[in-house]
């Protein structure tokens, strides 16, 4: 729907809310206090622990308070609230020009440092701190850098637009990552329904060494990390292992762009491209938005919420989170906002499992969702572990296909949490 909409820079809000947990891992430690003035790009929260990420101020202004606020997950999280000064002042050392910097002067160590310093996280959805991915443990032989251009979900078009509009920057970002990882080959995987992006990227890639573009069959979840690796280099990441174990590192196209900005321009991750879409919206848009901008303002931009809105999803329709309120901020992981009408939001009443086996047929991980659902419901964690519940990538395909409209994934997710707890307890004993 929104694939034809060019990326538009979204205006600054009056107030921004910047949670200090926008990544997978430990919350960052807040460095500012009430009344402080901050510049755009200034570090306001620092990594705490190995898997954690820096947070920078996306705005110039005054810290109103540091408080608990509700984020997209519905939980209360610590956040820095900033009254925004429309007169922007950037932190020193940040290159805000639009010139393309192709020459990579930083060495591998500096690359990792810069990515860490500038708070880059995976923008595909998981928001895993990017610098950690580049710190390859001794003894692991990495041969490929895989770039995910699949656009994990239907409806979202932010990655598609970025590939069309920022391909050069992306290519340099990929080269930076390759240098950081000491790999010679990078493969960009794009689904074959985005031929314009494939053609454009192929064209650009011919000017850069070691980067190839592969069209992929259109099927969900092609953008799942493990499924993407399988499709591109025909290797299967074993249960409980990482892409590292089959010789590759995977990053999203938007992450590659963020890496370019972080390393070449010294610009922290303070904004991102996201899609605002929905059948009943007056218009759809791909927006470049500062982190901390309230979702409600994005919706105002597309003409406000329609009368019969039934559900607002942060992210895509298959894995996104339903929002309880639009007064939540955009964070690093917000790939899109999807507005569904009442009809789309309507959920059929679950009926008995008729054992049609559709869920086992569609599971990309080769699991038996109907069984894991039962284990989850009955808290049978040991059987759940045996039958691979922790391998579930939560793609939602089983739920989607179930003729009895059973909430398979909801119970599997619950079962995963219980089983994970059991495994952790066992390890600590």
């Amino acid at each position, binding site marked *: 729907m929104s694939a034809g909409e060019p990326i538009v820079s979204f205006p600054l809000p009056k107030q921004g809310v910047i949670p200090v947990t926008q990544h997978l891992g430990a919350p960052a430690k807040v460095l500012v206090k009430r009344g402080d003035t901050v510049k755009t790009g200034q570090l306001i929260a620092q990594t705490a622990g190995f898997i954690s990420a820096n947070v920078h101020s996306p705005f110039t202004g005054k810290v109103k308070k540091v408080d608990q606020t509700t984020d997209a997950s*519905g939980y209360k999280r610590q956040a820095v609230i900033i009254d925004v000064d429309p007169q922007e002042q950037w932190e020193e050392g940040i290159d805000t020009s639009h010139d393309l910097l192709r020459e990579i002067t930083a060495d591998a160590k500096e690359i990792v440092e810069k990515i860490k310093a500038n708070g880059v996280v995976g923008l595909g959805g998981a928001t895993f701190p990017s610098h950690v991915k580049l710190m390859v443990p001794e003894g692991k032989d990495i041969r490929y850098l895989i770039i995910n251009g699949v656009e994990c979900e*239907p409806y979202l078009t932010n990655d598609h637009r970025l590939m069309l509009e920022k391909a050069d920057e992306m290519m340099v970002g990929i080269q930076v990552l390759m240098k950081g990882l000491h790999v010679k080959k990078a493969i960009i995987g794009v689904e074959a329904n985005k031929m314009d992006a494939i053609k454009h990227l192929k064209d650009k890639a011919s000017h850069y060494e070691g980067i190839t573009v592969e069209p992929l069959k259109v099927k969900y979840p092609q953008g799942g990390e*493990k499924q993407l690796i*399988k499709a591109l280099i*025909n*290797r*299967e*990441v*074993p*249960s409980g*292992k990482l892409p590292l174990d089959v010789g590759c590192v995977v990053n999203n196209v938007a992450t590659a762009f963020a890496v370019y900005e972080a390393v070449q321009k010294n610009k922290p991750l303070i904004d991102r491209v996201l899609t605002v879409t929905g059948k009943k919206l007056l218009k759809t848009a791909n927006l470049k938005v500062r982190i901390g901008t309230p979702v409600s303002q994005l919706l105002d931009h597309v003409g406000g919420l329609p009368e019969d*809105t*039934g*559900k607002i*999803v942060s*992210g895509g*329709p*298959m*894995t*996104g989170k*339903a*929002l*309880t*309120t639009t007064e939540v901020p955009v964070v690093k992981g917000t790939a899109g906002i*999807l507005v*569904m009408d009442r009809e*789309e*939001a309507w*959920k059929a009443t679950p*009926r*008995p499992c*008729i*054992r049609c*086996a*559709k869920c*086992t*047929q569609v*599971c*990309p*991980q*080769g*699991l*038996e969702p*109907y069984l894991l659902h039962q284990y989850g419901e009955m808290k049978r964690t040991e059987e759940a572990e045996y*039958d*691979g519940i922790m*391998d579930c990538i*939560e793609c*939602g395909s089983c*739920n*989607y*296909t*179930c*003729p*009895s*409209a059973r*909430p398979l*994934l*909801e119970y599997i*997710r619950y079962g995963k949490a219980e089983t994970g707890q059991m495994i952790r307890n066992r390890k600590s004993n």
Partner: protein
Amino acid sequence: MKNTLTISGSPHVHGSWTIEKAMYGVVLAMVPAMLVSFYMFGLGAVRVMLMSIVACMVFEYVIQRYIIKGPVTIMDGSALVTGILLAFNLPTSIPSWMIITGALVAIGMGKMSFGGLGKNPFNPALVGRVFMLISFPAAMTTWPKPIVSRPFFSFQGLDEKVLDSITGPTPLGMLTDGADGTMPEYVNMLMGSMAGSLGEISALALIIGGVYMLARKIITWHIPVAYLLSSFVFAGILWAVDPTQYADPMFHMITGGLILGVFFMATDYVTSPMSAKGQIIFGVGAGVLTILIRVFTPYPEGVSFAILLMNAFTPLINSATKPKRFGEKQPA
């Protein structure tokens, strides 16, 4: 506004596949065979079909409404499928009260006593059919001949004399009991011009329905192909050993209820295994058992027993055959 937002876990979209689509898809697939039975057997077949469908749906309604006191789901199509399948397994001359008894056993004992749709270990229609076969052996094995050569509305009811003149043994019956009768040509068997129960007579009509279900992905190929191949191969081995004593495999394919069982009863979602591997084991087991029963027991037909026996193995097959997990083995 805010009060009306739905909050739920992902995914937020759902496919269009429902129980009803699957069940009514099966019903549609059974229509060709149903039409052939009406054409071949006349109004008698219509009577059996209607009695069976109505009885199955009424029993399901009564049990859900007054005994279980739960939600009534007779419109989901599953009782309709059971009703049609039960009728398909009966001869046209069967008295109405027997049909009603069979329907009560099928729905009440075969399905509802286990908790209704999705919980029953055995195919309900087959439970009903086998109960009737054991309880009313004579009525269940009296096979009216097709009426095509006679005017369509001439069926006289259950008068003994009339029955005698118009009944005949099934081809499998002739084989097992050495009963008198002219063996029909294979072409006639394919089209449905032979003695038998309602739904089993036309292999061609059943195959059309089976292909339709495969095309609409209501069923997968695993059970039908494994069932057909294994019974063909097993019958073929016997025939190769002694062609004078054993019928050729083609004969086994198109006589009796084999095709009906292969496409419509062995593939029942609830009572067949979940994984592809399991479904193949299930199909092979049913195929071998069918021929074993047909050839080495006094029963001329073995499809119902074979499928019911394999139904009993389904939980075991399910726990023994897991789908291939992602990352279990590196692809070559």
